């Protein structure tokens, strides 16, 4: 940003922010409206693939999106069961510990 921009920004006040927000959002929306809504499908397929290998709880999947001017980011966070839960599930089967005690 050069000095000129700095002055321009302060003179424009909040209207400059409004224009920028609109430009970014509308650029995305104009493209989106031509394509089918892909996010629900993308999520479904992604989880189906992961479920082949791992236990996934639907409630533990978080999808975050941030649309930007230069780039957008899509973040998919899948929480997997931790050690304790896995151990709980394995109960019934003898574990190393129980074998030793016996």
């Amino acid at each position: 940003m050069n000095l000129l921009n700095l002055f321009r920004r302060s003179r424009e006040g909040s209207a400059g922010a409004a224009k920028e927000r609109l430009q970014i959002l509308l650029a995305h929306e104009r493209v989106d409206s031509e394509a089918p809504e892909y996010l629900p499908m993308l999520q479904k397929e992604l989880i189906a693939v992961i479920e082949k290998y791992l236990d996934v709880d639907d409630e533990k999947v978080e999808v975050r999106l941030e649309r930007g001017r230069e780039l957008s980011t899509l973040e998919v966070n899948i929480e997997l069961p931790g050690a304790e839960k896995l151990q709980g599930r394995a109960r019934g089967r003898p574990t190393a510990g129980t074998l030793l005690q016996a």
Partner: protein
Amino acid sequence: MARIIVVTSGKGGVGKTTSTAAIGAGLAMSGKKTVVIDFDVGLRNLDMILGCERRVVFDFINVIHGEAKLHQALVKDKRLENLAVLPTSQTRDKDALTRDGVEKVLDQLRDEYDYIVCDSPAGIERGAHMAMYYADDAVVVSNPEVSSVRDSDRILGLLSSKTRRAERGEEPVKAQLLLARYDPARVEKGEMLKVDDVLEILAIPLLGVIPESQSVLKASNLGMPVVLDESSNAGKAYLDAVKRLMGEQIEHRVLAPERRSFFQRLLGRTA
């Protein structure tokens, strides 16, 4: 168990979305877990007013159709940890909003939140009907202007007949008036309806009077609920209204015309 509040008006452009954002943020600032829901299918805007438009992933209709979990569709506010937004769909047809679907979503939210604020679309079609159907309270937003007051009266009629409370013969939806874009200087000159005139005509309790203020456009430009602008008279008026909504007894501020200094007049600016 959350209270469900619908923000409605009949007429468009009177300040429903601004008011929903301000009330939702005000409740969250008071420590109440609050979710605001946009019911205006096809014309999403609450996200824009709250400044989270770039983070919308899924929407209300995705949740109703089972394409996304409710928690995935909720967008958490970055400034207020108690505030979340459920955006509406931008593309689907309005029939997607079903009574059963809406009820299912509200039931899930009810356990987790203290307040659910529903932003109604203008008009009296499906979206407006769905927004008010499950409401416990109604904030009827009106401007001191004839067509707006007339439409508010229509909406009051619908609130007393077309809601679940009305159909079940339960205690009626508690409707209160929020008079927005009020200009005390013009009222003083006799150019604008007085608060008392509007109250006399609509015969409902007054939740608050929001003065016409330049800070409202500024807040909208920035994507920030106006209650976060501490210097704004409109923001203060909304915070008072929120306290009344929570059951506090707050006196209505004396609405005197804003005195403008010589320099402010010279510059054509108001606070």
